[in-house]
């Protein structure tokens, strides 16, 4: 069984520049002892190690702030680890998040191209899949209008539609299951199920235990940046429920 993702001793921290007045900035830059630290450091991920087999569907669960989205971004190569190694044995990776990256002044059609190109589709593939993407997103006649005229639901549906047509080997899904009205949610879960075939590896972050139970072979549980457990879906979910109801 080959592994598509191998993570060893991953550490990642966020550095926030402390907002400071000019006087403080001067003293901290030029003082001999280095002065008070200009950065606030937040340990987002600490000593995470796990392996994921090719073709499996993995859920990532944990409370808010546990580091789930951060972990996905590391896998998508958006962030580089501060320590440790992350090996992703494929170039075809896509991260599905909520409607980001749209240029609100441009039309839906132009944004389909921009986003699609960004997510790794070639212009040729985009031309081929254009009809499908438009139909799935249900934006209809708003296609030519600037995105700033779209409702938030439309934006999410469009983003989702683009991203799920990308066809990557490793699909990372960051809590996009809650977008849209009930009807669209049903359609999107059906589409996600379609995407979860034996060839494709899917790693999804979700708060919906039912969804994780139904779709995932195994689950990784994160809490406050640390990996608490990894294993069979039902086992981990049982432990998590106990923890969540403490």
């Amino acid at each position, binding site marked *: 069984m080959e592994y598509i993702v191998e993570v060893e001793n991953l550490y990642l921290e966020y550095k926030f520049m402390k907002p400071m007045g000019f006087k403080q900035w001067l003293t901290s830059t030029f003082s001999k002892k280095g002065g008070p630290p200009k950065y606030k450091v937040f340990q987002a991920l600490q000593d995470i190690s796990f392996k994921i087999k090719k073709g499996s569907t993995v859920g990532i669960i944990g409370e808010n702030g546990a580091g789930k989205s951060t972990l996905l971004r590391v896998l998508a190569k958006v962030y580089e680890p501060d320590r440790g190694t992350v090996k992703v044995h494929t170039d075809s990776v896509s991260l599905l998040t909520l409607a980001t990256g749209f240029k609100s002044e441009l039309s839906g059609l132009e944004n389909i191209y921009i986003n699609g*190109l960004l997510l790794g589709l070639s212009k040729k593939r985009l031309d081929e899949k254009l009809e499908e993407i438009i139909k799935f997103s249900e934006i209809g006649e708003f296609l030519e209008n600037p995105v700033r005229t779209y409702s938030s639901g439309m934006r999410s549906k469009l983003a989702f539609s683009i991203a799920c047509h990308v066809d990557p080997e490793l699909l990372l899904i960051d809590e996009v299951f809650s977008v849209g009205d009930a009807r669209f949610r049903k359609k999107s879960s059906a589409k996600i199920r379609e995407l979860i075939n034996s060839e494709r590896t899917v790693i999804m972050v979700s708060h919906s235990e039912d969804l994780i139970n139904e779709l995932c072979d195994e689950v990784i549980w994160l809490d406050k940046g640390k990996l608490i457990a990894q294993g069979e879906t039902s086992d981990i979910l049982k432990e998590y429920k106990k923890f969540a109801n403490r």
Partner: protein
Amino acid sequence: MMNLILKDLKKYKDFVLFHVHVNIKLKVSNTILGYLWWLIDPFMQMLVYTFIVVFIFDRGGKDYPLFVFCGLLSWKWLSSTVTYSAGSIKANANILNQVYLPKFIFPLQECISNLYKFCFGLFVMVIMMAFFRVSPSIHNLEIILVIAVNFLFIYGLSLHLTHYGVFIADIKNILSHTLRIWWYISPGIYSLTAIPEKYRGIFWLNPNTVFFESYRNVLLYHRSPYYSQLLIWFVISLIMTYFGLKKLYRHDRHYSKMI
């Protein structure tokens, strides 16, 4: 690193081209007059400077509108690209949280979009030249070399600003004042000949002196551009671009954590 850049260029070629195309549309999307503003903007500035220099101070000569238009076009290219680049990583925070993008493409696509605007301005310039009865000359073609070095300089500078724009919160203000001073110490609204001989050496340290004077040479004065100075600035721009790219690649994956 060169391999990495070439690989990235190939991979993101479609995206850069489409982004340039889209960027150009974006620049006019909010407005009714659209592309007409690309004509009106430099034109209005030219009128203001002509009014002050020719009518109030009684200097500048009869071709002054053409004279100042040259400098204005090149300057607008530089200041727009540089200002955008300083804010580009922060502005694209959304996209950068979802997908990895090599950062050098932000200043690249802006430099290309503004080059497009520059060429539009050149087109207007040609019409004005006909109006002022400035005859064309073979030297007009040499403008391509000046544009090439100008591009490399602007791009090299923008690369560094793309990096510093992430760390320095005040950069927009600092840049706006620095750029204003830089414009006025460049021979844009005045000719280098207006500067006394003994100080001209200092002025040649400013790359814009080379660019502005060269543009005017090839378009208005039937002369060649300043080739030796262009060569020097070509080399300097090359070095600047190299180190700029190096800096961006070294910090590449850490920017998204900071914005």
